[in-house]
């Protein structure tokens, strides 16, 4: 048995050393290689940049907000920081990180998904992966400590983050980074596909919790950031009354049913590129992005 335990200890040690070496190598490449693959890397490599409009949120920002169109039609400078799979805690972290890196905008638009406000959604990290190579950063580390349920595993076990989030920051992403394969600058992705069936729907029935939303508002107030919350369109919304009440109460601009044509959707929660163009035009018009930045136009119109 003693011999076996020695055998096991040796293996565990080798295993541990490999984990540490891999973790170090991955992190070194992600932090030091200057090819920008993710929006978080972009933030770290573009300190002090100024924009007119910054859009934050999930895939429903990444695929919905055509920043090329905004820039072309308004003559202003905008950037899409929407990240697929990201929830409100990660959006909040992106906002904090922008502030830390001194990247600013005259207006910040944050898309609030229905899922973001579902009760007990505060401690929920599903799109945290892109931040994880940078856990040494204080803002990121402190935020994860507060909001990441897997904080210990994500930050203390060597290489765990790259194994657990292999789909996003695993060897594929690493090889693409090493191969200098860049992504588009403005980070907007227009989806090609068209909704195949019009029988699907977005069913809202849940109870909502706005605690995190209030924390973001408080942060913005403290840092003198002008935030606009809005909710992107969903296809065929059902049982949306409670959600709409929450939107109204929290001053979130409710675009949930502003697009109805199935040809403009990719699926129930995502517009395709044609839908994205239509929606972006709505934002340009409603928030008067061409001229002076204000939210009153939209409010007046609704009233």
């Amino acid at each position, binding site marked *: 048995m003693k011999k076996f335990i020695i055998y096991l200890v040796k*293996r565990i040690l080798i295993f541990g050393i*490999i984990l540490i070496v*891999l973790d170090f190598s991955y992190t070194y490449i992600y932090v030091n290689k200057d090819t920008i693959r993710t929006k978080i890397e972009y933030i770290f490599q573009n300190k002090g940049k100024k924009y007119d409009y910054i859009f934050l949120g999930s895939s429903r920002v990444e695929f919905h907000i055509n920043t090329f169109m905004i820039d072309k039609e308004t003559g202003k400078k905008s950037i899409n920081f929407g990240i697929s799979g990201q929830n409100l805690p990660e959006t909040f972290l992106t906002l904090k990180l922008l502030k830390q890196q001194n990247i600013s905008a005259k207006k910040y638009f944050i898309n609030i998904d229905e899922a973001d406000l579902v009760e007990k959604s505060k401690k929920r990290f599903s799109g945290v992966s892109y931040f994880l190579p940078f856990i040494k950063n204080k803002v990121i580390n402190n935020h994860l400590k507060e909001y990441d349920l897997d904080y210990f595993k994500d930050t203390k076990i060597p290489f765990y983050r790259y194994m*657990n*989030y*292999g*789909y996003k920051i695993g*060897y594929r992403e690493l090889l693409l980074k090493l191969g200098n394969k860049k992504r588009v600058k403005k980070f907007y992705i227009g989806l090609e*596909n068209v909704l195949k069936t019009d029988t699907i729907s977005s069913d809202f029935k849940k109870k909502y919790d706005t605690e995190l939303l209030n924390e973001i508002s408080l942060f913005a107030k403290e840092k003198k950031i002008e935030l606009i919350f809005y909710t992107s369109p969903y296809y065929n919304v059902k049982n949306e009354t409670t959600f709409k009440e929450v939107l109204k109460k929290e001053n979130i601009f409710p675009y949930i049913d502003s697009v109805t044509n199935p040809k403009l959707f990719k699926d129930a929660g995502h517009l395709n590129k044609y839908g994205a163009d239509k929606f972006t035009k709505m934002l340009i018009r409603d928030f008067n992005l061409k001229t002076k930045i204000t939210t009153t136009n939209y409010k007046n119109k609704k009233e």
Partner: protein
Amino acid sequence: MLFNSFEFLFFLPIVFFLYWFVFKKIQLQNSLILIASYIFYGWWDWKFLGLIFLSTILDYTIGLLLRKTDNKKKRRYLLWCSLLFNLGILGFFKYYNFFVDNWILAWSNLGIQMNKSSLNIILPVGISFYTFQTLSYAIDVFRNKLEPTKNFIAFASFVSFFPQLVAGPIERATNLLPQFYQKRKFDYDLAVSGIKLILWGLFKKIVIADNCAIYVNEIFDTYQDQSSLTLILGAIYFAFQIYGDFSGYSDIAIGTSRLFGFNLMRNFNYPYFSRDIAEFWRRWHISLSTWFRDYLYIPLGGSKGPKWKQLRNVFIIFLVSGFWHGANWTFIVWGGLNALFFLPLLLTNKNRIHTDSVAKNNYIPNIKEIFQIFSTFIFTTFAWIFFRAETVNHAWKYILGIFNNQNTFKIDYISGLERFSFEVLFLIPIFCCFEWFYRVNETPFEGRFKNLNELIIILMLLVFGQFTNHSSFIYFQF
């Protein structure tokens, strides 16, 4: 509980420690195995523990009653009780809805409409495995091949032995049960070989099977949109997915058993290097093939008697084997196809010509062997399409797509996944090389370069392993 889960990472060392350091007496060790096995199974759904317990009690009692009587009629009656109960619960949980649906469909084809009365039945994990294991006990006792046990704890541990409870290997009572009576001494070599098997099994599951699964799922779901070559690749990926998944599970199960001093039967023996279908079936899911051979094929007459009887027996064995996998026509067609592939070998009496290892003592096979291996793989992979498809129609359309879809020689960008499947095209050949060069061993961690191989496999496991997108073991559903 899954072998590739965090829970098992803690569960196994705890049970191992208690087993060798705290409970040193055989009865206590068996009791610990029993408790650990029930926890292992109950982790998935404790409500179905009752079924295992019921099956255990029944076959234990039947064993004792068979011991008491020499009356043939009574013995036969007792065996029928075991068969009816075990196959009854299997039939109810696994096949009830299939029979009801097909019954209604058959009548509706004749113009008679019947009310659908399918039930929402949850299939207990591993039910096909443990019912076959307990059946082997009752049958062997009935045949006087095995002395019935009085030791309930040993018997209950044999039925529920956690390493192989949910996906085999389906152990014969004659092999496993006596091991529960023997005093166990820690065997260093056995334990080390167990660790190596676990590592190799994890590699097969997490690196090969789970990476293939990502593309297989997408390609089979969107087969209409994929090119011919992508569809062919999808079928090949599935061949490696199911092999990596199931043989990986078996390796982990056998390896885990060795840590506790138990020897389980080998379940896979490099099946994709088979030179014909008969050899493939001697190397694939050996515990099930031999179970059917011993308890169905031979009682039916086996390879004795006139040719038509032999053919009948072969078809029965393959169709039943297909049906064992699931209540779907796809599995029956899969079984039927394998029987068809087997047929020419049986008719020409060539079904037992390849009983040794391919290219023995050679590094590479000769042209004839390459052709044989390649053609057997094509036949097997073709049949796997039915195994993987949702319905026979789905499989058929998939096959038609291989011939009819556009862009024949283009590997598709899988839009649903936003990527190409290049890493699988790189991983599969590496896996095949390891298997080929170490095919006379259990794992690549024996013989030349064993330490280097271990290091490479650990590295590949960590870098290429699917730790979050991993799918449950396919054979759990059977």
